[in-house]
């Protein structure tokens, strides 16, 4: 691929740097997409290893392997890295690869800013991971960064605030790029309402990012000034209010949940029609539902904090609004099922992951509805039920959609078909392992086991042991995925341009592997 690409470049543009400089200086959307995806995979193994350490400690009650403070550092960093270092960069990687290919654009609108958006991430990642070696260790107050713990910690807390700022900057620049690309660089004839669902979901996600990242930046800046410059925004002793931080944080945090899941909806909405050999059922409804989820996501934030104490009117308001947001989400689930209804289904690995997404994300959605009820939430707040809920949404939701997307587009990116047997092995190990880890956590939570503790009462032992065994199955099955990806890059059966029989869209009109430069002449969409 690269030889052809370079030969092409030599007679139009300047020559490309090679080796490490190619990746440091690249402005090509495909290169940058690959960088995002590799970064995300490395972070997945890093934060996944932390999860295995956490589960090892929890295999038995009592302290077995580590100091409690190190356990808290692991839970905090696992959360921060999985959210900001794995799920978000992976989706941005998909956007970089796929948005220009799907809308018939030659590249992203601002290629140099695109390069900067990516290269800020490793800087932030090194700051976060490096803080383990600072005096006092890494941050240990939970990924939500609540004061007063976050005001009291050592220098790694300042470093984490800086890292969050940098990652926010990267996200905002990425979003500006995606919005500008989608609104200005679509092929002639590709109207907004003809765009693939993945492009729609990313357009809306990008607006959400631009709206919420500055709120997070404001919150952590106030933490920074409370820590270092004598302000008392969140310090009750100085007239501040720690609960105000929670309001500001979750005003960012709940739309963030949708930032993590809307692109997943988009990927699944591409895959299910392909392997059902039918158009997506209710395309317009899907677009409308995505837009309304985005708007409503700003009205539900305080359901994360029912237990901190708020007027009953506020509890009712956030309880009702949270339940209502399930309506457009439910519409999406029905639309995916209706797309499969009477379709000519085949079950290649991307489709398996997409179907697992629909089933298991729905379980996460339902446990979310349980938690939406304020009186129930006050019982379950900070228990393992909440841990089960958000892992069903983020692992079997967001992460499974990422796997589905990789299997779906990898042949287009590499020019080789992946090994279907390995893919299915990865799928079954992942889906079984994931359920063994997280399903028992519902029971643990209902029985009252609190989250974020390294030790627990004896009666919780069995379910914890089951969860730990599942965690190791799930964790090590990701090595199958790594082997599969490396093998596919190296070789394998040649992928056709169309790749999948039922695939529709502009990305399938270019050769496999996609050439370094595509759509230099815009295609016309009828």
């Amino acid at each position: 691929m690269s030889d052809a690409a370079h030969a092409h470049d030599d007679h139009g543009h300047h020559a490309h740097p090679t080796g490490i400089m190619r990746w440091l200086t690249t402005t090509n959307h495909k290169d940058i997409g690959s960088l995002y995806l590799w970064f995300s995979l490395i972070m997945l193994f890093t934060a996944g290893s932390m999860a295995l350490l956490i589960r090892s400690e929890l295999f038995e009650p009592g302290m077995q392997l580590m100091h409690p403070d190190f356990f808290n550092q692991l839970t905090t960093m696992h959360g921060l890295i999985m959210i900001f270092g794995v799920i978000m960069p992976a989706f941005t990687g998909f956007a970089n690869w796929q948005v220009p290919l799907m809308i018939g654009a030659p590249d992203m609108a601002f290629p140099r800013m695109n390069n900067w958006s990516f290269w800020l991430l490793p800087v932030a990642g090194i700051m976060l991971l490096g803080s383990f070696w600072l005096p006092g260790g890494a941050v240990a107050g939970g990924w939500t960064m609540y004061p007063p713990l976050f005001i009291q910690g050592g220098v790694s807390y300042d470093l984490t605030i800086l890292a969050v700022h940098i990652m926010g900057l990267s996200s905002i620049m990425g979003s500006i790029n995606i919005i500008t690309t989608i609104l200005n660089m679509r092929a002639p004839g590709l109207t907004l309402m003809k765009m693939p669902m993945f492009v729609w979901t990313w357009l809306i996600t990008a607006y959400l990012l631009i709206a919420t990242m500055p709120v997070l930046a404001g919150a952590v800046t106030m933490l920074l000034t409370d820590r270092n410059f004598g302000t008392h925004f969140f310090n009750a002793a100085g007239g501040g209010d720690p609960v105000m931080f929670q309001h500001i944080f979750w005003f960012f945090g709940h739309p963030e949940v949708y930032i993590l899941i809307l692109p997943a909806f988009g990927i699944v909405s591409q895959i299910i029609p392909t392997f059902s050999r039918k158009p997506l059922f209710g395309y317009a409804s899907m677009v409308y539902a995505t837009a309304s989820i985005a708007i409503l996501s700003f009205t539900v934030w305080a359901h994360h904090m029912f237990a901190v104490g708020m007027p009953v009117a506020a509890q009712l308001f956030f309880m009702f609004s949270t339940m209502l947001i399930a309506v457009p989400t439910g519409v999406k689930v029905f639309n995916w099922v209706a797309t499969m209804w009477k379709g000519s289904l085949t079950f290649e690995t991307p489709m398996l992951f997409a179907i697992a997404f629909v089933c298991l994300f729905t379980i996460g959605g339902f446990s979310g509805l349980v938690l939406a009820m304020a009186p129930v939430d006050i019982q379950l707040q900070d228990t393992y039920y909440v841990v089960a809920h958000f892992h069903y949404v983020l692992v079997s939701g967001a992460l499974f959609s990422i796997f589905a997307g990789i299997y779906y587009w990898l042949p287009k990116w590499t020019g080789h078909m992946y090994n279907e047997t390995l893919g299915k092995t990865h799928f079954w190990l992942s889906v079984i392992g994931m359920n063994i880890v997280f399903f028992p956590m519902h029971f643990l939570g209902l029985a009252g086991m609190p989250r974020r503790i390294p030790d627990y009462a004896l009666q919780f032992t069995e379910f914890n042991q089951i969860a730990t065994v599942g965690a190791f199955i799930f964790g090590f099955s990701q090595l199958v995925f790594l082997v599969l990806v490396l093998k596919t890059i190296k070789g394998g059966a040649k992928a056709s341009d169309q790749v999948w029989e039922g695939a529709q869209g502009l990305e399938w009109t270019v050769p496999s592997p996609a050439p370094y430069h595509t759509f230099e002449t815009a295609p016309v969409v009828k």
Partner: protein
Amino acid sequence: MAEKGNLRAALAVFWSFFGVRKRRDYDDDAQSLTQAQIIIAGLIGGVVFVLTLLLVVYLVLQFVK
């Protein structure tokens, strides 16, 4: 004419909050409505949604008392 368009935008936003739209009506919307109309109607729709919920909460609390 403009009033009819605004009403149409409000209806489109209402259906979008529910998440469902008939293909024929959606095609008509796409023909007759501008992006600005939809965005403004969406923002107003968001405010109306919040106010409606506040009203429901108020009524529930009156009933409970």
